[in-house]
Structures are given as C-alpha cells and as structure tokens.
C-alpha cells in the first residue's frame, strides 16, 4: 500500500493538509459509533415491553378530596430495568471499543464516555431507589427535590422529570461520545434525541389512552427508532472504510 499522506517536498499548506488526512484516517479506525447506538436503541425500545409487562391500573382514594372520590392510578416500568440495562450497555461498549482498538492497532478514547455513563447510572439508580421508597407522587401533592417544592402536575415539573430520566441517561453520554469521536453527525443525532425527549410525547398521545397497556409506546418508540436508525446509518457509513482498510 503506497499511502504517503504527508508530501515529501510540499508547501506548509500541503504538509498540514497531509497531517489532517492522517488524523482523519486514525479517527476512522477508532470509531465504532453504531455499537453504543444499537445498544441504547435496543434498551429504549425494550422499555415498551417492560412498560407493557409491568402495566397496572389501580383505583385509589384521591388526595386532598374531602368527598373521598376515587382516582385512577397507572403504574408501569421497572426500577431495575434502566440501571441494569445501562450498566450492561456501558460495560459492553467499553469492551467492544477496547477490543476493536487492539485489533486495529490504535488506542481508544472511550474512557470519558464510560465514566459519564457510570456517573449517570448512579444518578438513575438513586432516583429509582427514591421513587421506590417514597412511591409515585400524587397530582396536587407537593414534591420536594433538593429544596425545590414542585407540583407533580405542573408542566415545568414534567419537563424536569423528562430531562432527569431517559434524556439524561442516554442523551448526555451521546453528547460525550460525539465529542470523543469528533463526530458532527452524532452531535446532531444527540441534539435531535434530546429535543424529542423533551417534547411532551406522553401518555394519551397518538390516540392511545393513559389506561392502555401500550400507553408508553410513543414515548419509547420514537427515540428508540431514532437511535436504531442512527446505528444503521453509522454501520453503513463505516463499512466502506473497513473494506478499504482490509
């Protein structure tokens, strides 16, 4: 292979361009973006099945209602699903990147992504534990979060809830990965993912009532599809490079 990337007697411009080309070649060998996207996409769409299997509709006395009327409480989701799923996803990504880098003969800069993932995993686990011990807040009941007195029914609280949930656990590591891999396409995908997560695609959307076992479908299917399509796109984009490299 004759691949003299830095010109022998080039002008300074040509020498710098040659160095830039070499840098791009190394980055291409280091990237494996499709793998974490596939895992995170699988984890997100798997949330549909978890929500379906854990779906419960309960009738409870309404809080703060002197007449003692009954309210419908919908419960779904497992407190173990995201912590265990994310732990396995980050572990698998770290192993994948290290093995891939070793096989290709280059180092990897995946550590910031994995460390962010572990920190978020701790945050998500703490939130799940808190929710399990304190129960789901009722509409109208005050919710104390780090000194903030929030109303669970208020739009601002719902936005914060979305931001502190899946959006933070998946979107933030994606931003870190985009920085690590210097990928503008991944940055765009991460921003798009966060935007979708912050749009109130909650229950009752797409004509699915809140009491339906499939009420969580749009909430997980839309971001999950985005991540899986992203994984497919990156996998296809990396294929020609692998063919030329071999």
């Amino acid at each position, binding site marked *: *292979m*004759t*691949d*003299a*990337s*830095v*010109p*022998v007697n080039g*002008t*300074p*411009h040509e*020498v*710098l361009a*040659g*160095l830039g080309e*070499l*840098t791009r*070649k*190394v*980055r291409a*060998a*280091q990237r494996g973006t499709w793998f974490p996207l596939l895992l995170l996409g699988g984890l997100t769409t798997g949330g549909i099945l978890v929500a379906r299997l854990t779906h419960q509709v309960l009738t409870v006395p309404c809080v703060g209602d002197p007449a003692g009327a009954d309210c419908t409480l919908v419960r779904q989701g497992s407190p173990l699903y995201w912590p265990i799923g994310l732990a396995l996803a980050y572990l698998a990504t770290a192993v994948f990147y290290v093995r891939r880098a*070793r096989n*290709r*003969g*280059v*180092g*990897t*800069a995946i550590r910031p992504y994995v460390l962010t993932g572990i920190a978020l995993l701790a945050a998500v686990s703490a939130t799940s534990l808190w929710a399990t011990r304190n129960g789901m807040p009722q509409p109208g009941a005050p919710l104390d979060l780090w000194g903030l007195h929030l109303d669970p029914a208020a739009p601002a609280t719902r936005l914060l809830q979305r931001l502190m949930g899946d959006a933070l656990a998946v979107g933030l590591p994606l931003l870190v990965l985009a920085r690590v891999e210097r990928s503008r396409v991944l940055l765009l995908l991460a921003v798009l993912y966060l935007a979708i997560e912050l749009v109130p695609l909650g229950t009752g959307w797409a004509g699915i009532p809140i009491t339906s076992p499939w009420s969580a479908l749009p909430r997980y299917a839309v971001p999950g599809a985005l991540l899986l399509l992203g994984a497919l796109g990156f996998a296809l984009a990396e294929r020609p490079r692998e063919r030329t490299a071999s």
Partner: protein
Amino acid sequence: MTEPPEQVEQHPATGLDDVVHQRVRLGILTVAHQARRVEFGFLRTALGLTAGNLSQHLTVLEKAGLIAVEKGYEGRRARTWLTLTAAGDRALQDEVTQLKRLIQQIENARPESSAHGS
C-alpha cells in the same frame, strides 16, 4: 553612542526541528498523537512504509525522547506499540505552530509581491 541593535523577528523556518520536520517522522508523531497508542502494523500501512524504513525512523524518534516503544505479545503474535511522550507532544505542537506561522507569512507577503509585479 551606539544605538541598541534592532530586534529582528526570526523566520519561522528557523524554528523547525530537524528531527521532527521530516515527512515520515511528522506522520508518526501525528498518528501517535491522535491514536494515543499505536501499533507498528497500523503505522506501516497508514504511512505506506516498509518495516525496515519505519524501524529506522522510530529509532531516531525514540533516541530523541519523543516516543516510547513497548514490545509485547498478544497470544503468540509479537506486537510493538508506541506512545507519544510529553516532549513528543510538545515537539509536534511546536512544528504545527511553526508551519502555521510560515503559511501566515507567505499569505501576508502575497499582496506585496503581486503589487510589485503590476
């Protein structure tokens, strides 16, 4: 009374290090900088060199303290990995800075030379 000598700004080309300012060695440092840790085979393919030629350049860089070479085995296969030292990282940054200064100088000189030509 003699006037103090006028301080002349050095031409960027004088700041280029002979060890670093060489096509292959500059390529090795660039790849090692981006890859953090790079294997001999990857370097050989990326730079389009023979094993002997690459080894010679690696020896020069190692003697200058710009890279660290680590030899080992993966299974039965012998593999050589190299990493950039702090001095190597500084030398690469200096080289790139000098090249950028050279470009700046050439571009700044261009309008003058075209004005003389007209």
